[in-house]
């Protein structure tokens, strides 16, 4: 793994609204994602995770602070930061293949080339045979596979994922986690992944950022070192449980502090 910093977030603040009714969603957030690193963010509901990832993706603007990609400040959304959302965001009028081709079409890649690329990524997510299906014919897990393929086909510098498996049932979720881990091994993609599932965070992440409740800020960062290839078997390893316990303690403290404030 290279140590070059791919993405860095510095002193980020986001305040919604003005005056007395304003809400500070993020305060003084600092984080880094290195090249080919899989970084997770966990935090209590409403702590500003979506706000943070939307700002990085260019869909929202910070009140102050900066987001740097390869050292350069970002400006609006761009194909260099691919996003996968929790809700299904496929284009229902396009077939699976056309959905995956979408980003390449926007870049005016010639049809032949983008078809080849699309087929490669459709295979990568295990959907060969469904190229010509419409989204309404797919299950939730399959839709998210298409969404992942669509984002990867653009070959983004960073992959930003906001609870991408949050809407899936437990079994599909495990399958998707292993799929993503496999893709990551093969493509060495750089990924920033939001979740509120601690198992998911420890299973997939090289590092885990734990956020505090609102106004969200980074509470701690943990390195995850688990021997061997990660899979659902890792869930019972002592190293796994150790990291999991530390995160749970932190989140527990967050919520009990919140209870005491009231």
């Amino acid at each position: 793994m290279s140590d070059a910093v791919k993405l860095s977030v510095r002193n980020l603040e986001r305040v919604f609204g003005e005056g007395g009714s304003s809400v500070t969603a993020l305060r003084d957030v600092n984080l880094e994602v290195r090249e080919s690193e899989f970084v997770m963010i966990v935090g209590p509901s409403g702590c500003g995770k979506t706000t943070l990832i939307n700002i990085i993706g260019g869909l929202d603007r910070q009140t102050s602070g900066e987001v740097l990609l390869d050292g350069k400040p970002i400006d609006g959304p761009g194909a260099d930061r691919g996003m996968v959302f929790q809700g299904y965001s496929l284009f229902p009028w396009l077939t699976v293949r056309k959905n995956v081709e979408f980003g390449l079409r926007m870049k005016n890649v010639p049809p032949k080339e983008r078809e080849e690329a699309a087929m490669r990524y459709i295979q990568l997510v295990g959907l060969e045979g469904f190229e010509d299906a419409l989204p309404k014919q797919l299950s939730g897990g399959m839709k998210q596979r298409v969404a992942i393929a669509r984002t990867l086909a653009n070959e983004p510098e960073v992959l930003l994922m906001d609870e991408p498996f949050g809407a899936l049932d437990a079994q599909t979720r495990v399958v998707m986690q292993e799929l993503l881990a496999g893709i990551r091994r093969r493509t060495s993609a750089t990924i920033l992944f939001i979740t509120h599932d601690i198992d998911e965070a420890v299973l997939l992440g090289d590092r885990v950022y734990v956020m505090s409740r609102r106004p969200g800020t980074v509470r701690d960062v943990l390195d995850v070192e688990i021997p061997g290839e990660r899979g659902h078997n890792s869930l019972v390893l002592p190293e796994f449980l150790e990291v999991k316990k530390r995160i749970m303690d932190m989140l527990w403290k967050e919520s009990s502090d919140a209870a005491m404030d009231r």
Partner: protein
Amino acid sequence: MSTLEYASSGSVGVIGKEAGLPETGMKIELNGPAAAGKTVNRKSGGEASGTQKRLLSLLCFALIIGFWCAASYGHWVQEVFLPTPTAVLSRIVSMAKDGSLFAHCRESIARVMVGWIWSVIVALPMGMLMANSKRFSAFVQPIIEFARYLPVVALVPLTLLYLGIAESQKYTIIFLGTFFQLVLMVCDTVSEVDSNMINAARTLGAGRFQVYKSVIFPAALPGLMDDFRLTIGWAWTYLVVAEMVAASNGLGFMILRSQRYLATDTIFAGLILIGLIGLVTDWIFRILSRIVAPWQERLGDRK
């Protein structure tokens, strides 16, 4: 903020759709035989589950026609007020033979199409812009809301003053009657496009124009087709208004002239024709939207 604004313009759009009463009102009363024809059409390609519904709507038309027959053949009502179905039919046949029927229909259809197409050409981009730009919306919304409540009939004298009885006067009436409603409907339909999809497109590298062309427009298309279908119905209403005031041909003119000669059979023929043309238009739009958006599961399919 923007959500709130969309919501408010949305509700206005809905009111606009409900304001489509002229169309609905006309259909219920006038389209007996025409609608019966359509129902038969549907039956051939339909499913068993819809049979009962179809039978019921057939029954409704049969009752109306039956009542009409009883009232006219039974002389409950004088013939000058209510012609017999045979009289109306033979009137239609004779007008078809001398060519006047076709001429009137052609004039009316041409006027509706021109006026309505202008309204679509202007309303479509404006509505899309309103839905996506708070500033543009703030700029045009008040005047559109204001104009929307002006009854078109009240604008007829002005259009006559400015444009005389030229064809452009009819187009203008149809345009004024449909445009302000259509803008708000387009705006409403476009704001309902899932923002997840728009965000996905933007992070996939789509520029502003590409988002309009490749996401917002196709996503809104089924809804837009419905908006078009509704407004072309209103366009017919305004056409008749325009033709009754100042025209020398067209179905509206034909109806008005017949009133002078107490030719009730021709009036009825005109009404039935307008209803028929309306039904055919409606039917064409339903087929068209199935063609342009086959990916969509539409409510209409289950009716």
